[in-house]
């Protein structure tokens, strides 16, 4: 994780902290599981590799690993990659006992990062609690200090005064609950900059409290005022003002952005998936946050395997077009270059043909596999059913719980399912255990085979798959306008993560003019249009 990366303009890091514990090994696991080319750091220790092995890890220099270097790992498995690219990294030497391994260095970095992470996450909570304590303690202090400091000269508290005690108690209770509801929760995200409204409200509260203390100190403590009724009324007015500030906080922080007035169009850069969302008046960073929450709910899982085909086509296209004329314009080379250009043109002409037949073939294959899969699953589901009353005296070996039932019928459909997932290139997003778990879930809830299959026929939303598959955990907000400024008509910003980015454009919701038209119930009258033909 690059906490110390350079900031360009207004781009900042915004991390999506979905996990509550900050163990480093969880994310280490994630790195091992994802075979993505663009993972930031590999955590395998450096070994000497022969030049044609694909598993080249991190560049090292003079026997010490470079902790800040992002390393692209080679693809294992199904993608045919250039196996010799490992030779282009810097010199490889083995680990010696003196140098620390890559794993430890990364672990150190992670610890520091996690500590700052939790600090950032709980800082608003800490500030909120401090301000809250101050706010709650101040009226009580106002009431107690005269009774402690000059009890003998204090006037006795009459009935009206004691009524005010009651009102202070309830108002403080309400204020406590309101503050707990609004402010005292662990943040659900860490944003690049401080929220302007929160800072303003905190300042306002502190200002209010300080001015009351000042007034109290000068007019009451110094003068040692004896009118206790007046002091109690003063404390009540403080609690009232604090309640009104809290009302302002509710309006500014919660209510203002509930009414939608902008429509954000979000487009993913890799496959062009677009969605529209209606959001209210928010700052750019808050808008980015709510859009990211919608992203996890709505967008189908990002699948890097589906993009390789277009990349290969692009590579072939570029390879065909490059016609170098190194020796300058000479008549002998003219024919050669012309031949190359026509060959390139011919290749370009056949590219769309290839694509058409490839896609038709792919569709046929997918449909065939899908048909086999549906039949296999339906057959598998016929072998198991819920135990009924009359089955109780069946042989005990046949009665099993959900997990065993799922394991029993899984093998008959496993092959067909795996082949289908391989054809649609989604085999890495479903592990055996997850499929078995889903099967058990469907059996428990009496789902039909079609219901079980739906999860595998189409890619579901990103949130469904669990954190190790998201491939998008750390987001960067790139925006030309300041991120604490509000969104306006025509704002654009970019949300980048490692593999792809989301481009967001803001448009205003149109001003709608609605008029009414009065319709009299008696005005619904009709005539019959005849067309008859008579023979004479």
């Amino acid at each position, binding site marked *: 994780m690059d906490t110390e990366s350079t900031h360009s303009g207004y781009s900042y890091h915004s991390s999506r902290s979905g996990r509550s514990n900050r163990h480093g090994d969880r994310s280490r696991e994630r790195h091992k599981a994802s075979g993505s080319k663009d993972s930031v750091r590999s955590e395998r220790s450096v070994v000497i590799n022969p030049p044609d092995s694909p598993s080249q890890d991190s560049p090292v220099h003079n026997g010490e690993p470079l902790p800040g270097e992002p390393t692209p790992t080679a693809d294992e498995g199904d993608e045919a990659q250039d196996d010799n690219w490992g030779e282009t990294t810097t010199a490889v030497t083995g680990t010696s006992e003196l140098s620390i391994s890559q794993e430890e260095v990364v672990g150190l970095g992670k610890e520091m990062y996690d500590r700052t992470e939790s600090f950032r996450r709980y800082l608003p909570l800490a500030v909120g609690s401090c301000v809250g304590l101050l706010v709650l303690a101040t009226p009580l202090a106002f009431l107690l200090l005269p009774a402690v400091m000059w009890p003998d000269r204090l006037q006795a508290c009459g009935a009206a005064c004691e009524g005010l005690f009651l009102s202070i108690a309830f108002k403080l209770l309400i204020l406590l609950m309101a503050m707990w509801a609004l402010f005292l929760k662990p943040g659900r995200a860490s944003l690049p900059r401080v929220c302007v409204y929160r800072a303003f409200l905190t300042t306002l509260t502190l200002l209010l409290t300080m001015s009351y203390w000042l007034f109290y100190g000068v007019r009451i403590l110094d003068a040692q005022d004896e009118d206790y009724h007046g002091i109690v009324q003063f404390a009540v007015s403080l609690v009232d003002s604090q309640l009104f500030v809290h009302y302002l906080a509710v309006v500014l922080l919660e209510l203002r952005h509930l009414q939608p007035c902008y429509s954000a169009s979000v487009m993913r850069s890799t496959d062009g998936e677009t969605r529209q969302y209606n959001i209210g008046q928010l700052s750019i960073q808050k808008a980015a946050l709510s859009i990211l929450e919608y992203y996890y709910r709505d967008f189908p899982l990002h699948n890097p395997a589906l993009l390789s085909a277009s990349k290969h086509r692009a590579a072939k296209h570029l390879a065909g077009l490059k016609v170098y004329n190194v020796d300058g314009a000479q008549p002998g080379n003219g024919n050669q270059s012309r031949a190359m250009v026509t060959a390139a043109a011919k290749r370009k002409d056949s590219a769309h043909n290839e694509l058409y037949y490839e896609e038709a073939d792919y569709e046929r294959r997918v449909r065939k596999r899908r048909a086999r899969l549906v039949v296999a699953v339906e057959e598998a589901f016929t072998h198991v059913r819920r135990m009924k009353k009359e089955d109780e005296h069946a042989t005990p070996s046949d009665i099993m719980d959900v997990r065993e039932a799922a394991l029993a019928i899984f093998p008959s459909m496993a092959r067909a399912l795996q082949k289908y997932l391989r054809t649609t290139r989604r085999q890495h997003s479903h592990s055996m255990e997850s499929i078995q778990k889903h099967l058990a879930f469907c059996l428990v809830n009496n789902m039909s085979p079609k219901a079980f299959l739906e999860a595998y026929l189409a890619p579901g939303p990103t949130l469904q798959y669990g954190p190790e598959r998201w491939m998008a955990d750390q987001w960067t907000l790139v925006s030309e306008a300041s991120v604490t400024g509000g969104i306006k008509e025509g704002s654009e910003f970019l949300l980048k993560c490692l593999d792809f980015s989301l481009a967001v454009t803001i448009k205003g919701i149109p001003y709608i003019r609605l008029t009414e038209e009065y319709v009299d119930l008696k005005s619904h009258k009709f005539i019959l249009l*005849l*067309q*008859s*033909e008579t*023979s*004479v």
Partner: protein
Amino acid sequence: MSAGQAFAVVVQRIEIRKLRHGDNLILGFSIGGGIDQDPGQNPFSDDKTDKGIYVTRISQRGPAEEAGLRMGDKIMQVNGWDMTMVTHDQARKRLTKKNEDVVRLLVTRKSLEEAVKHSMGSYPRQ
């Protein structure tokens, strides 16, 4: 053409002798149209607001076909009675009067008009 406006058309006189078919006297064609009908559904009229009486079907080898009536003809008069502003039922009654053996129709046809125009156009103006 709207009601009340004068118009000039080329007309043809057709005389049909009714044929006795069992108990009825038939002419061998069907009519459509009328001021109480929907003129927009008339496939034969040029002007879709024309509520006149049109011939919609001709029976094969019936008296009407032999007399020269054609499908799509607009009937302007029947035995002197005007048929341009009548209801469908009135038109039917005028054509099926039991005491008349012969009906003399005044019909107009698009092709008639065009034939006359062509023939007029081929003579040089004097």
